Structures are given as structure tokens and as C-alpha cells.
């Protein structure tokens, strides 16, 4: 027993010394191979690269889900003469693990620095306009011009977010303009119809009409939304300015209204008091919460990626219509490292991939596959709303969940109504604090003034941002 122990530990020590020394440079290569299950594409590209012994360009791709890495497979399949190889690093955004890693890698520079990196709506501003924006290349320098952007009819909010001082640095492939997704059966029962055009005028425009509708629903024993988080996103995005004005914390009146609206929801029992992304919230998507819930606010991805798995028996009983006020929620932007411009071959490869993902409106462009759900050959995959209105207008957005309704009819105008001008790079952290304090107020633990005061104090404590 003792000898076994000693022997085993000796082997471990030896292995650790070897791996610790050699682990640094070799490990990132493994990440590429092990991350996406179907990366057969990269090796087949190698063999079909033609007879020219050109050096393969390696692109370091950083993402926080496997969405973009899966796109690289499709890219290599549709571009057999592309002489690239993707080395992918995926770090989930949970617990804030992605950003520090990405920031460190960008700061370190060198061969392993990210060439293309993804940023989510919650923190994209830091990389496109904020502290880390110096690392990002201008799309113009990569050969991706503003004209291309106009031709593809990219949603304006997406461009606003991705630009710094008029220079475009980031674009996304999804458009995440939000709509109101409601239950057809509950609509018929309360309003007599489930027609999106009629419902649109029942619930809005404006929050006063929304609450009138809530009262009508309550009379029938239904809640209008699942939790206060559901109305937060439209409210957040409807404000005139963001959380920071001249570097100081500013509470826009429209956002401050959230305190009152949330309380109104709770006091009148218009919702099930759930918190988004929790079990109870999901339960409401299948109508199995405390009271049946009329609708959810969300972009197309909420329908296709979240509700899809949760609706169960209510599948087909949903429809979308315009929300009381326009908003967007979520989305992923792609950025390129400034340093890729130094190498012509790399610059071309990076530009080509980014163009394919964000600006290509052709049949073989990513967005066409993405919108129609044809990423995998022969399989009907998930459809989604994409950045280019041009692509959406030629695509078929009918989905079963919505009882056959073409979701693009609603989402194209929704994307246009979203605003990209009221965000800051600290939004993610500030929003967490804000929602927490609002919850304290609505549950009766604090007075309204106390909640606001505590909110300002905590933002100062945690982020070192003073209030005006």
C-alpha cells in the first residue's frame, strides 16, 4: 500500500513537472480540437486547400458559447478554398469568467492573442467603445465599409453599439429587437381575438395601456407577465440616456419609473413574482405557474432557444406582436484585433470570415442559414432573427411555436425601434444592483427613497462611480 502510494505520487510529480512546463504553449491547441463536436471541417479544408503550399492562416477565435465556433464549421464547409484554421477558446460568461480571461489575453498580445473575439450585449460596450476598445480594429481597415452595412440593411442599434466615434468596430449576426410574445388562447378569452395587430393596440403603445390590459387579464384570472424582470428590458432600453452622464451615475426618469411599475405589478397581482432565468419563470412559459401568464417580452432568441424547450403543451398557442415600447435584449457582436492588420494574409482571412457572418446577404452567407435554420445540411434547425433586414425579408420565419406566424414580420420593425444609444460598459453590474434594490422596494423591505439611496451607494462602493 505504501509503495503504491509512493510510486503513484512520484509518477504524478513527474507528470506535473512535464506538463506544467510544456503546458502553456500546447494547451490552446487542444482547446480547438476538443471544443466543438463536429470540427471535422478544419482538417478537410486542409486537404482540399489546393496544391499551393501556402501557409495556413491560424485565426484565434474567442467566444463564450459554442455558437460561433459551430459557425466556423459551416464556413469551412462552404468555403473550401479558404486557407484558414480556427483555434477556438470558449469560456462561459458565468460568474464573470469570460471577460478577465479575454482582457488578459488581449493585454498580453503576441501569437496567442485573440484575432476575433465575441462580446455579448451585456458587456460589448467595453470592447467597442470603452476601456478595451483600443484593442479592436476598425471594420473599415479590414475592408468592410459602411456602404456594405447600408446594403445589408443592418439594424441601426447594432451599428450604434458597435461604433466608436463614427468608426464601426463591431457587428453582430443576430438582431435582438424585442417583441411581445403572448398566448393566443388567453388573448381570445380576454380580448376576443388573437390577432397580433389588435393585441398590439390593447397592450400599448405606452405603459398606461399595458396596465389597462393587465387589469382586464386579471379579471379573467391571468397574470400579464411572469415577473418584473420581463418589463425591465423594454423600460431599460426606452430611456433617453443611459446610466452614466459625464461619468456620473444618472437615473433616467423612464428607468426610475420601473420602481413604480414593478410595485404596481406586485400590488395588483398582475404577475407571479418570478425572477427571470429561474425555474418558476420557465414554468410560466408552459402556463404551469401560480396563475397562467399572458406573455413575455423578448427577442427571437427567447422564442427559439428558451421558450422552445419550455412551452410543452402550449406549443403553437403563441403569437408575437409589437411591444408597448421598442427595445432590444442581448445579442453577440464580433470584433477583430487591431493587430491582425499587420499581416496581409491574416487580415484577409479575418475580414472574410467577419464579412460572411455579419454582412453577407447572399444565399451562402451565414445569416441566410441562421435565419432559416439551415445550418446543418438536411436538418431543419432553429430559426432566428438576424442582423440584416434584407436577409430576413427573403427568409421564411414561420415557426410552429407561434402557430405558423412569420416572426420576421414583427421582428424587422422591432429591430428598427430598438435604441443603441443609451448603454454604458458598466450596465451589467449596475443592472444587477438596480434590480436587487427594486426587488427590496417591491417586497416592502425598503422605502422608495431608501432603495434609490442604497442603489447609489452600492454603485459607488462596487464600481467607484459617483452619483450626480
Amino acid at each position, binding site marked *: 500500500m*505504501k509503495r503504491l*502510494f509512493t510510486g*503513484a*505520487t*512520484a509518477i*504524478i*510529480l513527474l*507528470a*506535473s*513537472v512535464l*506538463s*506544467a512546463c510544456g*503546458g*502553456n504553449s500546447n*494547451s*490552446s491547441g*487542444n*482547446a480547438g480540437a*476538443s*471544443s466543438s*463536436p463536429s470540427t471535422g471541417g478544419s482538417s478537410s479544408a486542409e486537404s482540399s486547400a489546393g496544391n499551393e503550399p501556402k501557409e495556413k492562416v491560424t485565426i484565434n477565435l474567442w467566444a463564450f*458559447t*459554442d455558437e460561433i465556433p459551430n459557425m466556423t464549421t459551416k464556413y469551412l464547409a462552404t468555403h473550401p478554398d479558404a486557407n484558414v484554421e480556427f483555434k477556438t*477558446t*470558449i*469560456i*462561459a*460568461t*458565468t*460568474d464573470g*469568467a469570460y471577460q*478577465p*480571461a479575454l482582457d*488578459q*489575453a488581449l493585454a*498580453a498580445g503576441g501569437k496567442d492573442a485573440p484575432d476575433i473575439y465575441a462580446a455579448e450585449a451585456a458587456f460589448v460596450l467595453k470592447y467597442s467603445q470603452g476601456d478595451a476598445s483600443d484593442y479592436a480594429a476598425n471594420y473599415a481597415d479590414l475592408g468592410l465599409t459602411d456602404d456594405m452595412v447600408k446594403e445589408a440593411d443592418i439594424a441601426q442599434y447594432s451599428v450604434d453599439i458597435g461604433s466608436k466615434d463614427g468608426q464601426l468596430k463591431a457587428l453582430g449576426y443576430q438582431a435582438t429587437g424585442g417583441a411581445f410574445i403572448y398566448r393566443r388562447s388567453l388573448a381570445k378569452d380576454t380580448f376576443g381575438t388573437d390577432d397580433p395587430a389588435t393585441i398590439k393596440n390593447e397592450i400599448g403603445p405606452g405603459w398606461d395601456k399595458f396596465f389597462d390590459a393587465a387589469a382586464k387579464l386579471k379579471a379573467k384570472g391571468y397574470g400579464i407577465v411572469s415577473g418584473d424582470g420581463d418589463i425591465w428590458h423594454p423600460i431599460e432600453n426606452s430611456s433617453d440616456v443611459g446610466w452614466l452622464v459625464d461619468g456620473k451615475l444618472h437615473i433616467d426618469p423612464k428607468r426610475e419609473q420601473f420602481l413604480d411599475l414593478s410595485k404596481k405589478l406586485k400590488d395588483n397581482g398582475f404577475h407571479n413574482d418570478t425572477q427571470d*432565468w429561474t*425555474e418558476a419563470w*420557465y*414554468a410560466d412559459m408552459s402556463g404551469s405557474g401560480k396563475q397562467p401568464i399572458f406573455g413575455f417580452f423578448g427577442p427571437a432568441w427567447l422564442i427559439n432557444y428558451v421558450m422552445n*424547450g*419550455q412551452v410543452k403543451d402550449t406549443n403553437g398557442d403563441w403569437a408575437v406582436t409589437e411591444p408597448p415600447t421598442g427595445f432590444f435584449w442581448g445579442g453577440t457582436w464580433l470584433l477583430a484585433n487591431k493587430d491582425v492588420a499587420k499581416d496581409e494574409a491574416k487580415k484577409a482571412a479575418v475580414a472574410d470570415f467577419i464579412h460572411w457572418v455579419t454582412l453577407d446577404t447572399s444565399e451562402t452567407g451565414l445569416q441566410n442559414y441562421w435565419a432559416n435554420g439551415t445550418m446543418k445540411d438536411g436538418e431543419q434547425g432553429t430559426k432566428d432573427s438576424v442582423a440584416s433586414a434584407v436577409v430576413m425579408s427573403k427568409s421564411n420565419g414561420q415557426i410552429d411555436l407561434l402557430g405558423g406566424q412569420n416572426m420576421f414580420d414583427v421582428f424587422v420593425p422591432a429591430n428598427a425601434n430598438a435604441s443603441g444609444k443609451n448603454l454604458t460598459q458598466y450596465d451589467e453590474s449596475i443592472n444587477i444592483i438596480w434590480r436587487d434594490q427594486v426587488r427590496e422596494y417591491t417586497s416592502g423591505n425598503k422605502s422608495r427613497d431608501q432603495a434609490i439611496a442604497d442603489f447609489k451607494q452600492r454603485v459607488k462602493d462596487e464600481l467607484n462611480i459617483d452619483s450626480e
Partner: protein
Amino acid sequence: MTNRERSGTVPLSVHAMKESGKVSRGVNKTVIYIVLVFLALLSILPFWTMFVNATRSTPEIQSGLSLLPSTHLLSNWNVLLDKSFDPFRGFLNSLIISGAATLLTVYFSSLTAYGLTVYNWKMRQPFFTFIMCVMMIPAQASAIGFYQFMYKLHWTNSFLPLILPAIAAPAVVFFMRQYLLATLSIEMVEAARIDGSGEFYTFNRIVMPIMIPAVATQAIFAFVANWNNLFMPLILLTQKDKYTLPIMVSLLKGDIYKTEFGSIYLGLALTTLPLFVIYFLLSRYIIAGVALGGVKE
């Protein structure tokens, strides 16, 4: 002098008291056993639930509590792997770091303890008091500086900063010293010297074998402590393929896995399985070690 000793017989009253004492003791014992069984269940139930839920599918879990396993182990496993949770990689990383750190800790602590007990040197007592003080330093005090230091050395995402500091482990030195003081006789060392062995040779070949019980105990604790360490690896390792198991566990709670409860439980079960195995194999030594560590004369 008590009544008992004077009269030579046991008075009736005392006898009655002993009888009732026995009854109340019986009642006491039942109460005690009930409490103990309750506590034992309290210790087991969460883990039992975890293992059971690892085999159930998410809808099953959402529908209620169950103490019996189900059949969805394989599907949970597939979901877990699909979502790029790599338990093998995490296991390997944790194993490498913990194993190497444990080896360094026990060897160098024994070495230092030996130096403190066998040799008579001027700074011996101050050095020992110094070690005692070092034991009290909370990990956070050095964490930020340590991180910045490693960042400048470009040693982030390397296992070295997690392994090398294990050389200096004050608590283990303390324990080894106690053990040596109790079991080592100077005569043995002197005899070895007379036989012509050098100091290092004496330590490695003669003294270390004597210390095996203490080494084994401390090795187990060092290994488990290193295996369970979250804070340091969390701030130093940012590349996914370098993650240790605790880091992976901390990521299980996040966005990607929120809906898939079955796979969350399975991930948790996987990360703790090695610990359970070690524990049940070596529980006797572990508990003896805890007891030993507590008694400080």
C-alpha cells in the same frame, strides 16, 4: 467516608436511585441514538439526493423529490459533455496540482521539522514562533499581491504558482515537529552519524520511514485541501483547459446549464466521486489524523 463504606451494605434508597438511574439512562440513550441517527441522515441526505438526481431527467427533477434513482444517467452525461464541461480534464488538472503540491508539502515540512528538532541552532526558537505566526495569515492578505506578482511573471495559467508555494506549509511543519518530538530519539541520529552517514542521507533513509504514519495523515489532508481549493485557482487560471474541478463546479451554476438540472447534479456528483472514494477507503486514518491534530500538549 461515605455511608456505603461505613455500613458495608447498599442502602435501599441508593439502590432505588441506581435503578431509576438505569431507566433514565435508558431513556437518555434512546434520545441520544435518535439525535445521532438524525444527524447521520442530515449528513447523507444532500449527497444521496445529488446522486439520485444525477440519474433523473430535468422534468422529473422539477416535478418533485425522490429518493430512488431513475434511468437518465446517460442522457445527462451527453448533455454535460455537449456543453463543454470536461470532467476528465478537470480531474486531471486537479490531480496534477494536488498531487504535486502534496508531495512538496509533506517532504519539505518534514525536512523543516527535522531541522527544528534535531539540530540546536541559534534561531531555532524564534523561527518556530515565526512559523506559528505565519499560520494565522489569512489567504486574502497575500492574494492580490500574489496575483499581480504572477501576472508580471507571466505565470498566470500555469500550474507552478499553485504547486510551488506548497513548500512552505506552517501547519504541517507544526504537526511534524510534534510527531518528531514524540517519536524520534537523538540516539538514532547519532548512531547513524557514527556509522558515517551524511545528514541528508540520515534524513531520507532513516528518519523519513519513521515518519510515514504522520506523512500519510498529512498527505491526505494536504491532498484534500488542495483538491478543494477554489480561490487561488479561480483567480490564476483563466484558460478553460487549465480549470480544476472546483472551478468547473462553480461554472455549472451559470447560464448555460440553468435549465438542465439533471446534468448539473451529474456534474456535481462527478466532481465529488473521487473524494467519496478516498474518504471511505481511508476514513479511519483521516479521523485519526483529525484527532491527532487537535491534541496539542
